[in-house]
């Protein structure tokens, strides 16, 4: 089921990239940023990306994922740090620091071969 989830995101991404790439340009790379809340697996997303772009001008384009971590704030000692998982204990002994995750899912950049040069 999670892979199905990544598949629909990859399809939406391919549509966005195709809409923004110059006509006829070969897409070499795509950079996206994903907030921790989204719960997306970069490896699964890359696999789906390769599948949905097969046979398109985006085929072979490398998908670079900037997966943003959770921001953790300890209400007891005030320490702030980042974590790949939301529920973590603080070194001060507090077992329930508050996790804050972003829900961004942004296209950051695409890299294309400028064939007109």
């Amino acid at each position, binding site marked *: *089921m999670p892979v199905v989830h990544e598949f629909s995101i990859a399809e939406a991404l391919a549509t*966005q990239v195709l809409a*923004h790439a110059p006509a006829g340009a070969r897409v070499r790379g795509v950079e996206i940023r994903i907030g921790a809340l*989204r*719960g997306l697996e970069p490896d699964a997303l890359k696999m789906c990306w390769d599948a949905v772009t097969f046979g398109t001008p985006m085929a072979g384009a490398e998908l670079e994922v900037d997966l943003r971590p959770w921001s953790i704030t300890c209400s007891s000692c005030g320490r702030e740090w980042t974590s790949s998982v939301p529920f973590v204990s603080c070194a001060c002994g507090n077992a329930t620091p*508050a996790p804050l995750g972003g829900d961004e899912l*942004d296209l950051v950049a695409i890299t294309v*071969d*400028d064939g007109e040069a």
Partner: protein
Amino acid sequence: MNEQARTVRMPMVGRVLEANDDVAAMTRGDLARRGVFAIDLIGAPGSGKTALLEATLQRLKGRRRPAVLVGDLATRRDADRLARWCDRVVQISTGEGCHLEAGQVRVALDQTNLEGVDLLFIENVGNLICPVGFDLGQTAKVGMFSLTEGDDKAAKHPYLVAAADLLLLNKIDLAPHLSFDRAGFEADVHLLNPTVRVLELSAVSGQGLDEWIAWIDRGISAVQGETPE
């Protein structure tokens, strides 16, 4: 391939789901103009989404004019169950799709007579992960958990908890038979979303349904610009 070809990095600023979000924004505008309070109901398979809607439609009969969109992978069973209580039920078959998208909702709404409708339920596909990130144009996102799923489900599904305007904890009538840690569940919820309300209810016994109906009534009043009683 031109040997002179240069590789150019083009910075973009845009959402990956822009196309979905644009359609959702149109739907949200249309529903607001019509004075429709629209609920996107998200919960696991078997959490009791359809049972809750049956009980809700039964209680609203004659008092509200609801319409229901039902997302389901393969069958019409949910739609048939709800059609006994509501004459505006539209089935959205998602096939392999694990969630509803804004375009599917828009097409379904085009097939729905919205004349006089003040309440729209969108029963999403049974899934706690995929549906959360897809805006449908709803007024409120309601997340549904149930006691039989276990008390760790809020912690395991942070996006739904963080994005929800209201959380329902269904099958509360089974509490005496289960070891569900309600305090622990609520603590996880409020770490992720400090302001969201958790409403304990049972679609079967009716416990908590008055509060659920009152929440819906306040939502309709807010959308229609009425002063709540």
